[in-house]
């Protein structure tokens, strides 16, 4: 009757972690497929507007990106909160756009230049003034294919 349980005699067995790598690999593959490498370090906030009639941007090699939006919080003290343009990794002015597009063209094969598209990633709260100015700059350098990058809206 007076029996002492042997120490550790009836413990639940340790949970097997053998399938943990599989689960993590599954997550890893999901992220590898669903995401893309960061092209630039975003210095402006671009919460994109929503639209329904959108097409996927094919041929990503021939796309140059222009970001427009209010600067991130850490730049507020220096630059204010008004929307700014970002090209590559830095803030830019309107008249930097033409040299930027020319530079992008020089990087590409000449046969691909007509296929080049400019993707405008602008914050939805931006005013049209700056957008119109950018459009005018693009027209001046004859970069006429423009993509207003938007998110998919669920109807």
């Amino acid at each position, binding site marked *: 009757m007076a029996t002492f349980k042997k120490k550790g005699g009836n413990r639940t067995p340790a949970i097997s972690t053998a399938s943990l790598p599989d689960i993590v690999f599954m997550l890893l593959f999901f992220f590898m497929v669903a995401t893309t490498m960061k092209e630039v370090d975003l210095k402006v906030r671009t919460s994109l507007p929503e639209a329904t009639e959108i097409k996927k941007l094919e041929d*990503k090699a021939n796309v140059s990106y222009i970001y427009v939006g209010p600067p991130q919080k850490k730049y507020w003290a220096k630059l204010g909160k008004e929307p700014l343009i970002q090209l590559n990794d830095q803030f830019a002015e309107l008249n930097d756009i033409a040299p930027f597009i020319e530079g992008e063209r020089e990087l590409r094969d000449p046969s691909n230049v007509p296929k080049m598209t400019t993707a405008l990633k602008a914050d939805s709260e931006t005013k049209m003034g700056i957008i*119109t100015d950018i459009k005018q700059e693009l027209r001046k350098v004859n970069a006429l294919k423009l993509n207003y990058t938007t998110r998919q809206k669920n109807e």
Partner: protein
Amino acid sequence: MARRPLQEINAGSMADIAFLLLIFFLVTTTMDTNKGMMRQLPPIVPPEEIKDTDVRERDVFVVLINRADQLLVEGSRMEISELREKTKEFFDNPTNNPNLSDRKSKEIEFFGTVDVSKGVVSLQNDRGTSYDKYIAVQNELVAAVNELRNDLSKRKFGKPFDDLDEPQQDAVQKYYPLAISEAEPKTYSK
């Protein structure tokens, strides 16, 4: 030589390696949206080459957006929810309303000689219009044309526009061209 039983490789650290990779991908990648509305900008025309085009008033569907994001369509206030239907009606003009777009006959593959709308949408915005509204209006206009194209494809070929092959798509696009003209920017407000 005595054969030792093969020892099992310890896979415990596999999870750590996988986590390391996972975190690397989480940090260096973004859920990038690479979708958007494709638009073609008009080339810049030197002022001396600008000609008066003979577009009649009834063929122009004027959409104005002011700085308070309000819409003025063909001279009257409109909510954005009505814009799509109105645009479709303008291009289609089923009742031959003399205030809506006129037609001209045009030879199109698959369709033969058909009457195609001469309508053009003229979109003008203020510098103070929000980008959000501008995209929403563009979206409605494109949606209107896409719906017309889809209806036509279903009537003619029995399937939606996206499932047609390229010559058929071209024909439908010629039937309903996406004619949105954006005015040269004017400054109303700073």
